[in-house]
Each structure stands twice: as structure tokens, then as C-alpha cells.
């Protein structure tokens, strides 16, 4: 059984009398441990897909099964719990809370998970160590560079041991060198066996992942699977 199963998912927005099909009958499976990218130009529906996959939004039609939970029937409180326990998000603009310290930002998901304060501190420090920022735990996000902030965001995404991590244009706000190190970090995490979904408009970034799903006008237009093409026997493509 796949970790994520999308079946005939559509998302339709209504603007006046006009129907906008942001997603049109999309079916998709993501296996545990996969490193996959969703690629498409802006307005293609890739963000909508990520929101639906990430339980931030619900589809108009179709079903999603995430780790054996049927999302269609989940209440808002259950969705919040799923986001909390099973999903980690990394955003383009980092989305750290400026008033909290780095460590407190990383602790945030655990607060909503009801983890005791001592365990929170330990796990936050462990997560920061993983992204090499344990000596910055007392800093404010604004005192860090963009790359460091994104690493804090990754630590926050990982701290509740999620089943799947979604990264929405994680390098979009960084210079190319820093972006490269972030992608490198994702690749390392993937090699540790985590399931990671990269959402991007940039084919060069998408090239990092073995499997690429291209979205155009709300439909999956093309799937490139290194495994199917026998490319996985080659060394991972170096980032540009």
C-alpha cells in the first residue's frame, strides 16, 4: 500500500459563473521513502495539489488516503492533527515566527502535539543538530541568513517525525549557491529514508529527484520515473 493515494481528485473554484478547474481528475501514488518533485509553471495547479496532499485544503471531488486515513471524511480538527503528526512543511518564505527564538520555532509543532517541555527541548536541539544549527538556537530568525532560516524551517518540518515532508519552492528565495546546499540537505534526508515532495517551477531543481511529475492545466501531463527508465542505476544527477 502506498503512503499517499490520490484517486480522481478535482478541485474546482467558482469565480462568478465561471468554473476554474485547478485540478482536473488527478490520480497519484507516493510510496514511503520516495523523493519526488512536482513541477509546473505558475497557475498549473501544482500549489493546489500540494495543499490537498498536505491536508491544508480539501478536494471538490475524489479521495485521498494518507497513511491509511481517508482524508475526505476527516474533520478540521482531525486534519489539524494529521498536519501536526504526519506532515512537515517547508515554505518558500521560510515562515518562521519572528518573535520566537530558533529553538522555540522548532518546538512549535510539538507544542500543538502536546509534547512535554523537556522532551520538546531535547527533540528541538536534535533537529537543529541535524541541520547543523544547534549553536544558533537562541537567535531570532531575523538574525540568521536566508539559508540558515530555511534550515531552521526544515528542522521544524522534521521535528515531529512526519511521514512526508512537503517543500514548496524551498530554494525560491535563496541565491543559487545556498539553494544548492538546501537541495543537498534534502537529498541527504531522502537517503535517510524520508519521504519528500519538492514543489517547484524550475526543471533544474526538479532534476534532483528520481521521480518528477509535471502538472499542466490541472492535469498530470508527464511522469518521469528514473526507476522505470533504468536511470536509478546511474549516480544521482548533480545539481546545477
Amino acid at each position: 500500500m502506498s503512503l499517499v493515494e490520490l484517486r480522481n481528485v478535482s478541485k474546482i473554484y467558482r469565480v462568478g459563473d465561471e468554473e476554474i478547474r485547478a485540478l482536473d481528475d488527478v490520480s497519484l501514488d507516493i510510496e514511503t521513502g520516495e523523493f519526488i518533485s512536482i513541477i509546473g509553471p505558475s497557475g498549473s495547479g501544482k500549489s493546489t495539489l500540494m495543499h490537498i496532499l498536505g491536508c491544508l485544503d480539501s478536494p471538490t471531488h475524489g479521495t485521498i488516503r494518507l497513511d491509511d486515513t481517508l482524508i475526505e471524511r476527516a474533520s478540521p480538527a482531525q486534519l489539524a492533527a494529521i498536519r501536526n503528526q504526519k506532515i512537515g512543511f517547508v515554505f518558500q518564505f521560510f515562515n518562521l515566527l519572528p518573535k520566537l527564538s530558533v529553538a522555540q520555532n522548532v518546538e512549535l509543532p510539538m507544542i500543538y502535539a502536546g509534547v512535554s517541555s523537556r522532551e520538546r527541548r531535547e527533540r528541538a536541539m536534535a533537529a537543529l543538530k541535524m541541520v547543523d544549527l544547534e549553536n544558533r538556537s537562541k537567535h531570532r530568525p531575523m538574525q540568521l541568513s536566508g539559508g540558515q532560516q530555511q534550515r531552521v524551517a526544515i528542522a521544524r518540518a522534521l521535528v515531529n517525525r512526519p511521514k512526508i515532508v512537503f517543500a514548496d519552492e524551498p530554494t525560491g528565495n535563496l541565491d543559487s549557491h545556498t539553494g544548492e546546499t538546501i537541495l543537498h540537505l534534502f537529498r541527504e534526508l531522502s537517503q535517510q529514508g524520508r519521504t519528500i515532495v519538492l514543489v517547484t517551477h524550475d526543471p533544474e531543481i526538479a532534476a534532483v529527484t528520481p521521480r518528477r511529475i509535471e502538472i499542466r492545466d490541472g492535469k498530470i501531463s508527464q511522469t518521469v520515473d528514473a526507476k522505470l527508465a533504468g536511470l536509478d542505476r546511474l549516480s544521482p544527477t548533480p545539481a546545477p
Partner: protein
Amino acid sequence: MDLWITITIGFKEIWAHKFRSLLTMLGIILGVASLVAMSALVKGMENGLREALVAIGGLEKVTVVEEDVPAWQQQLADQAPGITMRDVYALKDSAPMIKLITPEMRMRGPTVTRQGKAFHPWMIAGTWPSALEMNQHVIAHGRMFNEIDDESARSVCVIGTATRDELFGSPQTTGQEIIPIGERININGHLFTIIGMFKHYESDQERKRRELEKNQPKEIKTGPARSRGYGGNRSSFVFRLKNATIYLPMNTMWIKFRSTAGTNNIPDPRLSGLQLKVADSERMEPALQQARNVLMHTHHGIEDFEFRTQESWSENISQQIRHARVSRGIIAGISLLVGGIGIMNIMFASITERIREIGIRKAVGATTFSIFIQILVESIVIALLGGLAGLVTSYALVRVLAAMSPAENAPQITLASMALAFGFSAGIGVAAGLLPALKAAKLDPIEALRYE
């Protein structure tokens, strides 16, 4: 998420916007302070009025005063007899439900002089010895005049301490208490011997203050003594009047001042008033009806008199207090309400500022409920902090008011008003936080994350 963390977040949020939060709290602070201070003022007023009520003779005292003839008896107005001794004897004989009757004949424009000093007492009245019991006077020195003094119309008087203070010197100025029994004073041209003096009447507050001052070292006076003016005397109105009373025997008053004497060639037998004490204050109405029947008879059916009961006065007092309480409560309530609106406004501004934060919190797993609680707790924390600061402010405010208000009306902070004000501010915190919290909780996480 546990409550403690939410409260901590609330405090941090307030601390992050110190000045804004303070301004927001100001409404609550003022509201709570004014509520507590105003109820303290009303309480002080109530205390003063109750004390005064007892001082003027209790609830079962009724005064009969002359009143204009009613409209339907206007043609009989020149036959109206007024209140005279006839009424007193008639009531004494025919109204058994009246326990005590005291006539009172006041002197108009009284002046008392002695050795070049003059004093205008509030009242010089010719009366019976029963006036002592009627008006709750206490003789501290000497004696009250008796029936024999009255019968033989002796030139004797009983004075209050105000007269003594003015003509002989007060204990404060002379440093010792002068007891002028046996001294002679001149009342409107006639010599009178002082045979008794009332005790000094004062409210509890005044007595406490006086006793406190007694133990303090005296100020060294430099330069000429100056009068502090009438306003400098902070003693209560009712007690001041009571101290400035002089009683003469009824017949002395009649013979020396009211019958044809001196420039006064028309005798005036009218009493200025008649005081009754009802035997049973529970049966006030029938007793008054009885007295009324008797008086209607002696007045030939002309209703030129009126009963004034302390009960109506006491009702007046409670009504006044009620009005004061309501009007001041409304003022305080309005300022609390305005404070609440201020909080609501700031909470709305605050969540608009923090839409993105709310989106992030929701993305990492905050439920609708936990966002709701977070905003609500922030609002309550602001309101409660404001309430606490308001209580402190009210304490200071009441100290200031106490220094300004007359002694017997000294404001008194009640625990109930503090509890009420604090509870009210908590309630306002909840009420003001509800809408913003609901708005924040309902935010769509995707929209919130996109918000710039």
C-alpha cells in the same frame, strides 16, 4: 496545547507591544478605578447620611410644621390658626398613640453676646424639657431646665458647644475645656444664665481625627492668627447645627420674646413646629392618623399643617444612594465598555497583523480551537492586567478623594465593589476577545499563509 503555554504566549504578545497594550488597558484601568472609587464614594455618603439620621432623632420622630392652606380651603386662609400650644395640649390629651410631644418656638434672627463677642447660633428655641429625649441631646455639664424653670419662666438656657467655643473659647484654642455653667450671656437683649451644656456632637470620623490630632505635637504658631474661614471647618453639617443649638424654657421664650414686648406689639403665639414621637414605630400610619384627627379638630378643619417623618427622609436617603449608585455605575460601566471596545479593536488589529503567524501555526498543526483560545487568552490577560492596575489606581484615587471630602462622608472601598469591578473586567476581556478570536480561528490556512 496546554493553557499555561497559551497564557505565556499571551504575556509575550503583550510585552512585545508594551505601549500599545498599556493604552489598550487604560480604558479598563479607568473603568475599574472609577467603578471602585465611585462605589467607595457612595458608601461614604451612605455612612454619613445614616449617622446624620440617627443624630437628628431616629426614625420614630415626626415633625409637624405649618403648611400653606390647600387650594380648596383658600377662602379660609385668614382663619388658619397655625400650630399653637392648644395643639400640644390637645394631642397630649387625645392622642394616646403619641408617646412624646415637644413644642418648639424658635427665635428669629438670634444673636448671643458676651463681653464684646457675638455669635449667631443656628437655633434658639423655647421648648419643654422633653426636647432632650426628642432630639437625642445629651447634657454633658450642668442640667436641663425642668418644669419649674418653665413654669416660672426663668431666664436660664442650655447651650451647645458651638456657643461656648465662640463666646468663651474652644478647647482647641485655649488648650483646656471651659465649662461655662453659671455664666451669664445676653440673648437678644436679655440676660440668661447658662445652667447646662450639651456634649460635643461629632461623627465617628471627626472624633477619630480629633483624637489622632491630640497626640500629635502642636504646630508652633508664627505671625498673627488668621481665621481659616468657614470652609476650614470640616465638621459635618448636621452635627454643626446640633452643636449650635440653644434651648430656653417654653414660657421664657413666650414671655420674653413673643408676647407683646419691646418693639413687638402683636403677640405671636404660633409655634415654629411640633415634634412627636410615636409609641410604636411599626404603627406609624395609624398614629399619624390619630394625631391628624386631633389637629383637624383644633384647626377647625383647616389643613394648615403637615407631618414630616424621618421615614420619608430615610427613604430619601436610600433613594439618593440608589440614584448615586445607578448613575455612577452607569458611568463606570460605560468606561468599562469603552475599554472593552478598545481591547476588541486592538485584538482585531493584532490578528490582522498576525494572519501569517496564524497560517503558520495552523500549517504545523494548530487546531481552530487552539487558535481561538490563544486569541481569547490574550484578550483576557490584557483585561485582567488592566483590572489589577485599575484596582491599584482606585486605591490611590480613593486616598485622594478621602483627603478632599468631608470627614463623615469619607469614601470607603468595599471588597464587593473590588470583586465586582475585577469580575467585570474579566468578563469584558472574554466578551471583547470572542469576535477577534472567532475571526482568527476561522482563517483559511492557505489564504493566511499567502497573506503579505
